[in-house]
């Protein structure tokens, strides 16, 4: 096989997610009321894209976080709660002078790292199952969030918030640029490092990875910890977006659920070992767009949860097509 065909086979999931996103977003743009009224001017399109991207970037960060853990064949059901916790924390400390704000941002990201590290330590050294562990730590993180913000409130540095949720040169949404930068700074180096390779190896076959002398523990620890960091980025952006901190239980659960949906749509296998965070980002953007299509077509918003649930159900059922390729029935139970 030629090089490009290898590349194509490897990136199939990501490209599919990208394709779904492009189609959905085109339908969304064409039917958006603001664009139908004002026509395709640069300004209107930029505004619509800005609003859509601000919303979708939140899910994209959380989905990237989920991807890192899923690649190691784990799952992190606490990402939504880390997201909520860092949102509440940011509404306290990301305020004041530029220096204080910068320190606050560092503090929030450090808190996310710490949450992820706790998950990783318990899963690796405590040898507990990721599902139970992260459900329990999720309860702890939510408790802390509730302690920080018993009632919605707080504030955030307005200049920074406006800058990161606004537009660069009046066209490109700053949130998308930040997302792109995070992919470049966090994901690409991770994937190319030894630890990143090891994370994939652990997800494919832990026993084989161990036999090959791959640093298993370091890889899983890095995946959980970086997941905490990325979820904190999402929490930070939520604060920039809403200007408040709120310990909303339902919202945390929703983000956890949607992050899994985005990961699946983005072509990341839940059994570990394949997929990329870029795919999950497009999965998140596509999932958000699908959810918003209902608004564009003027449906009753009451139907939105059902619609998203059905889309989610269909997305996860897509994996079942792999069953047709199974030759030996015993492989069903792998």
């Amino acid at each position: 096989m030629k090089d490009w065909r290898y590349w194509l086979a490897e990136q199939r999931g990501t490209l599919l997610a990208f394709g779904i996103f492009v189609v959905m977003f085109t339908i969304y743009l064409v039917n958006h009321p603001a664009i139908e009224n004002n026509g395709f001017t640069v300004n209107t399109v930029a505004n619509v894209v800005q609003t859509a991207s601000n919303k979708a970037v939140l899910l994209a960060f959380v989905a990237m976080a989920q991807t890192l853990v899923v690649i190691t064949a784990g799952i992190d059901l606490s990402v939504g709660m880390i997201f909520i916790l860092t949102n509440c924390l940011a509404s306290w400390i990301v305020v004041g002078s530029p220096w204080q704000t910068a320190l606050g941002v560092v503090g929030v990201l450090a808190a996310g790292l710490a949450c992820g590290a706790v998950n990783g330590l318990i899963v690796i050294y405590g040898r507990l199952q990721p599902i139970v562990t992260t459900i329990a730590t999720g309860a702890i993180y939510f408790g802390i969030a509730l302690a920080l913000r018993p009632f919605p409130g707080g504030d955030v540095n307005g200049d920074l918030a406006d800058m990161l949720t606004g537009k660069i040169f009046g066209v490109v949404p700053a949130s998308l640029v930040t997302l792109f930068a995070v992919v470049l700074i966090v994901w690409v180096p991770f994937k190319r490092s030894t630890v990143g390779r090891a994370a994939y190896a652990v997800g494919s076959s832990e026993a084989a990875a161990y036999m090959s002398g791959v640093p298993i523990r370091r890889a899983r620890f890095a995946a959980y910890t970086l997941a905490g960091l990325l979820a904190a980025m999402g929490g930070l952006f939520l604060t920039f977006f809403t200007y408040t901190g709120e310990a909303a239980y339902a919202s945390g659960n929703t983000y956890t659920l949607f992050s899994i949906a985005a990961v699946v749509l983005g072509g990341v296998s839940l059994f570990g070992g394949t997929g990329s965070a870029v795919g999950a980002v497009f999965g998140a953007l596509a999932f958000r767009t699908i959810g918003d299509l209902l608004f564009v077509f003027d449906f009753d918003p009451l139907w939105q949860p059902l619609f998203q649930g059905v889309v989610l159900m269909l997305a996860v059922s897509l994996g079942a097509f792999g069953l047709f390729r199974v030759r030996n029935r015993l492989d069903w139970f792998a």
Partner: protein
Amino acid sequence: MTDSTGTPAPRASILRRIDPAIATAFACIVLLLLLGSLYSSNFLSPEYLLQQLKVASFLGVIATGMMLVILLGQIDLSVPWVVTAGAMMSCAAASYGLTGEILAIPFGILCGVGLGLINGIGVAYLRIPSMIVTLATNAVAQGLMVVYSGGFSPRDSASDAMRWLATGFAIPSVPNSVIVWAVVGLAMVFLLTRTTFGRAVYGIGNRERAAYLSGVKTRRIVMIAFAISGGLAAFGGVLLAGYASKAAQSMGDAYLLPAIAAVVLGGTSILGGRGNYLGTVAGVILITLLQSILSVMQMPEFGRQIIYGVVIIAMLLLYGRERAAH
């Protein structure tokens, strides 16, 4: 109570055969009661204990279904909205005159069985990881309930039969819900230890391939187990609706974590194949007592969540660890 091998053993070895997890859970229950009695002498009164059993019975019914699924090595995360769906649908049925009143309880349970079947088909036949398909079912059930109720708590109220089942006293001073839990529990013990279905559940939990090669219809059994779990979760919702005399949005949210925690704290392996119903009973009582004591101490919600998570992880670290892989 016999252990999972089901063979009667001589009396002398009973002490050795007690599962350390179950013993720890019961020890923690005694410890909690003693701690509570230091705080207030009411903790050891029969009224208080019966009241706790009554509260525990709702969780007990839900955890029974969860245990069956966990024994298979799967998990059911659709509990929150299946509970709510059971509660809402039974209340909805109860508003349709006399026939509705009679059919309210079976209808609510049937809705749960239906949702459980979706889970079961997804897991058993489509081979989707249970964690994912049950989350999706949860989302679909939520969507259906939001559309049905218009986003508000519905105004239908529970039927008299539901209220009687949840709050009445058929035997003096023993709440009906405790009897319901006992019946459900005994049925589950019978199912797990005395039927081929139960044997197959343990077999699949240990190694599905081996069970399949031994001629067990593994897919059908997994599907049925999920349907039972859904039905029991909805039944828990029906009881809760009877207790509160109406259904409410997201009333099931508070039952997912406790149900899993109760099963796992009771020594059932989250990987499947090992576990004893007595442990689940201990886990349910333990969780309920913990909640009760935290609320008696007027611990604010955030503290409860934190203590809850810490206790679960601490207890799992004590005895729920996997063997070292290498």
